[in-house]
């Protein structure tokens, strides 16, 4: 377990990574979980406590914005800072996968 918080290091957990991906366009909090289920063919289910805490922490870190919608609920959307963090982490993950591809060869594709 890393000692520094991922909100400081920018090293995203899988849940954080997926949540950021779903809020590129404004979305209701409760719809994020369904979207992640759909995106991952029901393989990843984010629990509500994990979802809510992660959103709260991301907001405190200014990775996401809360926009009030007409029905009184809150919409979440990624900020420029959040987008930078997401893209940074994406490149890091991509890089490690590229290395693995080279080392493992085609048969593991």
């Amino acid at each position, binding site marked *: *377990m890393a000692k520094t918080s991922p909100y400081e290091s920018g090293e995203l957990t899988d849940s954080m990574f997926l949540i950021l991906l779903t809020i590129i366009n404004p979305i209701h909090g409760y719809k994020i979980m369904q979207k992640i289920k759909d995106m991952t063919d029901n393989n*990843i*289910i984010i*629990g*509500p*406590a994990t979802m809510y*805490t992660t959103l709260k922490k991301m907001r405190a870190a200014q990775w996401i914005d809360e926009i009030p919608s007409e029905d*009184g609920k*809150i919409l979440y959307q990624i900020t420029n800072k959040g987008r930078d963090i997401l893209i940074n982490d994406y490149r890091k993950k991509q890089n490690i996968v590229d290395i693995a591809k080279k080392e493992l060869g085609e048969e593991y594709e």
Partner: protein
Amino acid sequence: MNKYRFCNGLAIFPEHDMKMLSDMSRSGWHIVGLSGLMYKFKSGDPIPYIYSVNFEKTVDDNMLDIYSESGWEAIVLNNGYQIFRATEGTAPIFSDKQSEIDILKEQRNLCGKGALISLTILIVFIMVFYLTDIRNGLELLIVIPIVCFIFTFFPFIGSVFHIRRVCNKKE
């Protein structure tokens, strides 16, 4: 008809209490609230519900929408602790360790601060009464910092152990 059971200390043995609530539901007694240190149950059909506790500092509608969308119904809602219920097979409220540890650390820090402050007040109280001869009933006020200390120190210890358990849990 109602039944009551003592709360074993939500912050210290949360799993123990959640299992008890689940066992009660299986035998047809469903929790309707927690007042003080007592769980209150009402009788109904036996249903194998599962229960979970969380320790969010504050509660809002937005949060409840997210829970109900996941199949978790709020049973006890207080700032600081919340109990949720779902049918068997519902995915757990925490899906990764990081988020669970984040919340527990918040709780630990808050209770730790509270315990430290009430302990300081308690020591000042004891010194004042030890060094002076004031004996006019005011000394009974010492109960206040003692109670505050108990209700912050035990949750503090509870969250320290809880964090350790979550850290050692296999994912």
